[in-house]
């Protein structure tokens, strides 16, 4: 489904990704952990074509998205992304936030999209807040709207960049529950998160990244409790 091959990314002289390769199969849930500055966000942004790679290839369903001829907007429409700070559109209601993608990008009829959007808001448990503006919602509610907004485009894969790290503790669970449900339904997901409970419950694999490289990967139980690499061990001892 997603194949990342030897991807390099530089910001000026800063070498942020130093040859990252991994593969995510359809229906897999891959959790990426690693210290701040490791390049996790940059990796996700490359997969969503928000950032141009300086070397290597990224394939989505066999299509090389690093190819200059590929339509970047098309790629982004097929890849959903959820951000740490939600990034909802503050001038639109929750419902309008969810409807915007299909209406503007796919040019689908509004009435049909409204139905889909209400369904999705129901699914993330905030149908009653459809007419609220983002500023009237709690962080957890905003993030759930953001997930619904991404889902409205019917993406092939969902990327989550620390979706719960900006949330108050009591709101983390409501967002993780939505993500767990999504994972159980078979959505392909790449999740940057240090929520071990989530990883243990649904992750098919955990990848540990440090300093622009993948240090090791494996099942959640192994990476969290019994990693091979000393850098992984050191990191896990810090976050536990």
């Amino acid at each position, binding site marked *: 489904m997603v194949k990342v091959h030897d991807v390099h990314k530089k910001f000026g002289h800063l070498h942020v990704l130093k040859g990252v390769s991994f593969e995510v199969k359809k229906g897999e849930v891959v959790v990426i952990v690693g210290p701040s500055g490791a390049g996790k966000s940059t990796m996700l942004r490359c997969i969503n074509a928000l950032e141009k790679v300086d070397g290597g290839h990224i394939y989505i369903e066999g299509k090389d998205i690093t190819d200059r001829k590929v339509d970047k*907007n098309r790629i*982004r*429409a097929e890849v959903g992304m959820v951000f740490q700070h939600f*990034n909802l559109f503050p*001038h639109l209601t929750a419902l309008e936030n969810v409807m915007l993608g299909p209406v503007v990008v796919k040019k689908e009829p509004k009435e049909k999209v409204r139905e889909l959007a209400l369904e999705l808001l129901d699914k993330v448990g905030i149908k009653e807040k459809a007419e609220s503006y983002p500023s009237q919602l709690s962080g957890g509610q905003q993030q759930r709207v*953001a997930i619904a907004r991404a889902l409205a485009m019917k993406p092939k894969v969902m990327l989550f960049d620390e979706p719960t790290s900006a949330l108050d503790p009591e709101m983390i669970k409501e967002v993780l529950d939505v993500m767990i449900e999504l994972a159980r339904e078979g959505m392909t997901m790449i999740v940057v998160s240090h929520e071990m409970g989530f990883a243990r419950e649904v992750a098919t694999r955990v990848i540990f990244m440090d300093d622009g490289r993948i240090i090791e990967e494996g099942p959640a139980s192994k990476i969290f409790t019994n990693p091979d690499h000393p850098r992984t061990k050191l990191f896990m001892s810090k976050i536990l």
Partner: protein
Amino acid sequence: MCGQASPWRSLPTHQKSRRSIIISDSKFTLRSFVILFVFFLILFLGAYLIQAKDIYNWHWQDIPPVLPVFLKAAVLTLEVSAVSTIVAILIGVIGGLMKISSEPALRLLASVYVESIRNTPLLIQIFIVYFFIATIFNMSAFQAAVFALSVFEGAYVTEIVRAGIQSIPRGQWEAAYSLGMNYFQVMRHIILPQAFRVIIPPLAGQFISLIKDSSLVSVMSLPELTLTGRQINSRIFRPFEVWFTVAALYFVMTTTLSVFTHYLERRMRVNGKST
């Protein structure tokens, strides 16, 4: 403290107030009225002396007959300013988009435009338009005035639009792009509607100062308020009465708009859903 509230001491120091201590909000007292009375008495005496010593003869009675002409001219001033502002907004949106473009040539062009307008006197720009561009393109006085004023104001609107767009956080772009929108869709549906809110107040301020600046297009023989003042004055020769009336009309137009925009702003803030 004594009953007589001094405007300079009326604010107790222990009271945490948002207002400064110097400008306090104490009420009018008898003393305030005495001060005002003395001020207007001096003013009135001065005016009387000017009349009595035959320095200047007041002829306010000459103004009402020409007032309709003045009002018509004021409407023309408003028209020129409003049309120029609308054109300036078009220029400003294009200029603002050029300024944030990823193409250096477009950024350079926009900067050259803004800097050359902002660093030269409006009167000189008006001369260039009037004696050169308007002649080439055979423009009417109104067209030439709108041309000069909108090119002038467009430079300021460009900066307002640029600042407004750049005030929208990067995350808004990213979220919109990640849905698959292209540049124009992001602009139209996400960035501009939000930037609009930020842009409106300075834009209104720009419109208000254009009403005053438009006085300079009187040199283009467009019978707006200032030129009308000159014409009427050369006919009835009452310089103080005429120019005072002209100033008062400008004042009424700008303050009315000012009050109206404050009201709009407050309403926008009340309805504002953004945090």
